[in-house]
């Protein structure tokens, strides 16, 4: 199968284990985002795929050819990959067109130039072909770096935080353009990012990396609505968290009862509710709440509320974060009530030892468990 395939990669820097049996698959034509917090080993995994680091254990294939295992190490230059760094790493002594044609070996200089200009057309940089990198803005440098990486028609494109050096407005525009260029090239792409929104926007498939392993892989929708792991659920920002005990197939959180399928009776669980899963109503039928503050973000409004009836809450759980449409103006009504949308509620069993820290050991308990294709493929071997 075409694309990138990593099996059971393990890697340590000195005594520190960075990757522990990480496996993933990125088929040709697909854009995968490797998402995880800083220092979780995303960049190490990318560098292993690129051949910039030696694989200590496991196996890496590109287009069905083994490029690295514990014995073999195909050098970077023979892997046929494209690589783009956070700082773009444009060669400062070469012009834009010289940078783009740098990887076009074995072509006559006229042909190389033609191909280079084609790439510059794609990223809209033809006018700057003879400039030097330091004369370009950050966004322009990013475009040149993308053109340079794609010019030799790589089997695999690796992007390391490609947009983090850009300001917000520019970032959205460049993201859009990059997506268009990548889609038209049809190359298998693995992009490393720590920004969940960016991953949601760009990715065909998101791979969440935590504790040195891929914790979940799936379409953005799956990752967002069906996180198999509390770590994955928490990737997308602030959560409302409750601790309950399963009783009669459901759990009772302050906002009301929620179904808890597949969990044994009497089990202590952690209930996570996304801010957008809490619904606010004027004079509705839910639990009465008191507005603490509101924060307009543009399309959304983040509202901090306090449950009026504190009797049913455990200490420290009476405050909720709610994300509502900006048209909702809670200040205007006197009595506000809150409800919950079960689609945004995730329930995870708490370890018997009570150690929430041992996350890797927790099995996802969500009723609709999704075993992603790549995990299944790896497990099948």
């Amino acid at each position: 199968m075409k694309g990138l395939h990593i099996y059971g990669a393990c890697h340590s820097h000195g005594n520190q284990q960075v990757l522990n049996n990480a496996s993933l698959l990125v088929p040709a034509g697909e854009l995968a985002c490797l998402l995880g917090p800083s220092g979780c080993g995303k960049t190490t995994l990318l560098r292993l795929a690129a051949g910039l680091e030696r694989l200590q254990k496991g196996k890496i294939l590109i287009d069905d050819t083994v490029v690295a295992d514990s014995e073999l190490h195909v050098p970077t230059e023979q892997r046929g990959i494209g690589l783009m760094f956070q700082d773009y790493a444009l060669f400062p002594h070469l012009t834009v067109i010289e940078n783009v044609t740098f990887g076009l070996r074995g072509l006559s200089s006229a042909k190389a130039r033609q191909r280079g200009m084609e790439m510059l057309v794609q990223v809209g940089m033809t006018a700057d072909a003879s400039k030097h990198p330091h004369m370009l803005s950050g966004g322009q440098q990013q475009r040149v770096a993308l053109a340079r990486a794609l010019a030799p028609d790589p089997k695999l494109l690796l992007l390391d935080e490609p947009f983090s050096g850009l300001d917000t407005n520019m970032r959205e525009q460049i993201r859009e353009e990059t997506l268009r260029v990548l889609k038209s090239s049809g190359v298998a792409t693995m992009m490393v990012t720590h920004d969940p929104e960016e991953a949601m926007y760009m990715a065909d498939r998101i791979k969440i990396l935590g504790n040195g392993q891929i914790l979940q892989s799936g379409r953005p929708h799956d990752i967002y609505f069906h996180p198999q792991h509390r770590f994955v659920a928490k990737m997308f920002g602030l959560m409302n968290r409750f601790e309950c005990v399963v009783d009669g197939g459901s759990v009772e959180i302050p906002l009301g009862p929620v179904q808890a399928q597949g969990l044994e009776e009497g089990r202590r669980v952690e209930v996570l509710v996304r801010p957008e899963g809490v619904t606010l109503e004027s004079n509705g039928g839910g639990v009465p709440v008191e507005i603490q503050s509101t924060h307009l973000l543009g399309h959304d409004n983040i509202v901090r509320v306090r449950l009026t009836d504190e009797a049913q809450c455990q200490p420290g759980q009476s405050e909720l974060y709610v994300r509502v449409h900006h048209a909702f103006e809670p200040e205007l009504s006197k009595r506000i009530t809150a409800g919950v949308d079960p689609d945004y509620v995730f329930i995870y069993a708490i370890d018997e030892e009570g150690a929430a820290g041992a996350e890797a050991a927790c099995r996802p308990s969500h009723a609709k468990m999704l075993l992603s294709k790549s995990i299944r493929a790896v497990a099948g071997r």
Partner: protein
Amino acid sequence: MQTTADSAPPARAEYWSWVNGWTIGAVLIAATVTVPIVTVILIGLTPSDDVWSHLASTVLPLYIGTTLQLMIGVGLGTLTIGVATAWLVSMCRFPGRRIFEWALLLPMAMPAYVIAYLYTDILEFAGPIQVLLRELFGWTSKREYWFPEIRSLGGAISMMTLVLYPYVYLLSRAAFMEQSVCVLEASRVLGRGPWRSFFSVALPLSRPAIVIGVSLVLMETLNDFGTVDFFAVSTFTLGIYDVWLNMNNVAGAAQLASVLLFFVFFLVMAERFARRKMRFHNASAKYSALPGYKLEGTKRCLAIICCALPVVFGFVLPAGVLVGYAIVNFEAATSAELLRHARNSVMLSGLAAALAVAIGIFMAYGVRLRNERILKFMVRFASMGYAVPGSVLAVGVLVSLGALDNGIDGFMRGNFGFSTGLLFSGTIAAVTFGYLVRFLALSFGTIEASLGKITPHMDGAARSLGHGPVSTLRRIHLPLMRGGVLAAAILVFVDSMKELPMTVILRPFNFHTLATYVHQFASDEQLGEASLAALAIVGFGILPVIVLSFAIARARPGFSNEVQVL
């Protein structure tokens, strides 16, 4: 997905992976270069007569004390002058700055022994200064007034500081230029004035370059023979000469040398440790013009004086005196032989510079490619040649090449029935090898520093675009560190040109370079005869300095596509 070995630590299956061309080549070269040093150590460790205990009980404490004082004096002097002038010309704006940018390098062209001869001539009792003072004040004898004695430890410190500070200047200036101005501005915004920003940001960031500069200076200081001999300052190096030449005791000299080597070893290790603690890469792709603090009034005058003093005393004054001598003694100083000596000097120095740069690049890049411990150790060890006094190295080269010659001769006679005689001893190859052993560190250090400033992402980008290590070196690193390579070549060239003790010992019979020619006459206090040759050494020294200063002026971040200067 579950494998039994999951919990086992990852195995390093690359036990033999260091065996590749770069590593083998670099280790072999490093090993070859260390042969003379190892020879000296072996001789030093071989027990001989009781010269060792004799030395330890008599002169050793004196040698160590004097040497330490000399090192501290020259180190502090060059550090102050080098860093201060580098900061002034790279960060401030004042009249004459553009001239000082290159003029501050001029004293590099002056060998310490030459200005020692010249200043002694000027400042001694019968010299023009003291004659003038006596006439002005009507003194008649030395007892009536105090005048600093030039032939002293203080004199030696002054002479060496004056000609060695450009090493610190050159390296710290390059470091200041390569710094992202952003960090300086950040410091200003955080409420630190230009003065405190310099001490809290610019200086720490430039520390690796400055440390390299000062360590080069200290190694030069340990090596100097001409000045300390002329001034009769009892340093280690002088002691080694004394034991070797006057007591005719090679083993004793080598034993003294091995103590010195131990000393130097710690110096090098300390420097390396400091460097390893802070690895900076110029990750920022954004450059902007240097701030250029405009100086006014008193500050402006002070800046000009600060930059002018080292140039005047380190170059203008002695060069002027030298030119005067050359004019007066023109007839006596010119000879048909002079041109031949000059050609010898250029050829030897050029050969040494080319070899040192090529090998320096090979080894520095080898270390970058494969961060192997054995390689790093060998390279460090090979770099110690610079710290070893020329005379000692000469002993090492003589003994090791002699052994090689005898070995080849014996093999050929035994197997083929004819004698090859001495193939290498007393040839130009021997002199070049000596220069190489001694100056490789200079080239390697400069190139390594330059290479270290190129972010590893450049390597990654080039490699991912299908270029192997050699192609990446040729197309990315070499162009980016052109300035560093040029600087390395110039440093080795100028130093080889000035090199005296090793050339005297290793040269072929009747073969002269400009340095040996000057030495021959000047030590007999016939400076006039040698003035033209000395001037020629200085002149050759200046030429590369000019080339270098042009490169420096052109390459400024944000003004050209050249990012790296040194």
